[in-house]
């Protein structure tokens, strides 16, 4: 089954370069081990072909997009893991210290809640009767906030799609 899922090297290279460019434009860093990063990009492209979205290559996707939104790369857990461990869960994204060779990487524990808890998790209730002239939307990937009628089509900081935004205020 894996044999027919092989991605052509030029396709991997194209997506690797796009990913690197987007990361750097937003102040993020891709793993400096280029072959390692290409391997992850290849996994993302396999998942794109398999499920229709680029879910994390190091996590098991359900195949249902609405259940996997939090693990579509860049995942909702990237920023916290980069701060705490120097890299995101799969290590596609790394911290400045790792990029500079000042920090070694080791296995990163899974921050995503287990299946049983994810099913129970409800949308957080909005705090207090705050009177604002406009709602505030938060990008769950990078934390970008904006006050407008609805979330933007694409996050201007991390390029996450509209569906990754939540109502913040």
């Amino acid at each position: 089954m894996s044999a027919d899922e092989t991605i052509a090297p030029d396709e991997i290279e194209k997506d690797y370069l796009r990913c690197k460019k987007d990361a750097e434009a937003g102040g993020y860093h891709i793993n400096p081990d280029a072959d390692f990063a290409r391997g992850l990009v290849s996994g993302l492209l396999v998942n794109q072909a398999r499920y229709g979205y680029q879910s994390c290559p190091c996590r098991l996707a359900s195949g249902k997009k609405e259940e996997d939104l939090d693990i579509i790369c860049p995942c909702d857990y990237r920023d916290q893991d980069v701060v705490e461990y120097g890299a995101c869960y799969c290590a596609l994204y790394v911290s400045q210290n790792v990029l500079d060779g000042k920090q070694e990487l080791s296995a990163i524990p899974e921050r995503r809640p287990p299946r049983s808890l994810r099913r129970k998790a409800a949308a957080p209730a909005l705090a207090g009767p705050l009177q604002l002239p406009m709602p505030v939307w938060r990008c769950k990937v990078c934390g970008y906030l904006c006050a407008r009628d609805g979330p933007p089509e694409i996050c201007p900081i991390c390029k996450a799609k509209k569906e990754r935004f939540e109502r913040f205020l």
Partner: protein
Amino acid sequence: MAIEHVAGKNAGKLMLYALSTCIWCRKTKQLLTDLGIEYDYVFVDLLQGQEKEQTIAMVEKWNPDSSFPTLVVNDSKCIVGFKEKEIREALKL
């Protein structure tokens, strides 16, 4: 069942639950292969239907996060993630 067997020296019963797209799973598999020991593995993401559900339930029993790689040693110890030192210690290699 889509469990694959890799031949080698016997260092105990090893079952590796992995994803075909995961680099850390690949590194773990490579380590076991380089150590020349025998082990079984399954790519959970390539399973379908009931077989997939049953395998996920098995992984969750050992590792409630159901993250990968999950390596079960001798039906008694579970190592989650690519942890070379821990794996070598568990296998006494």
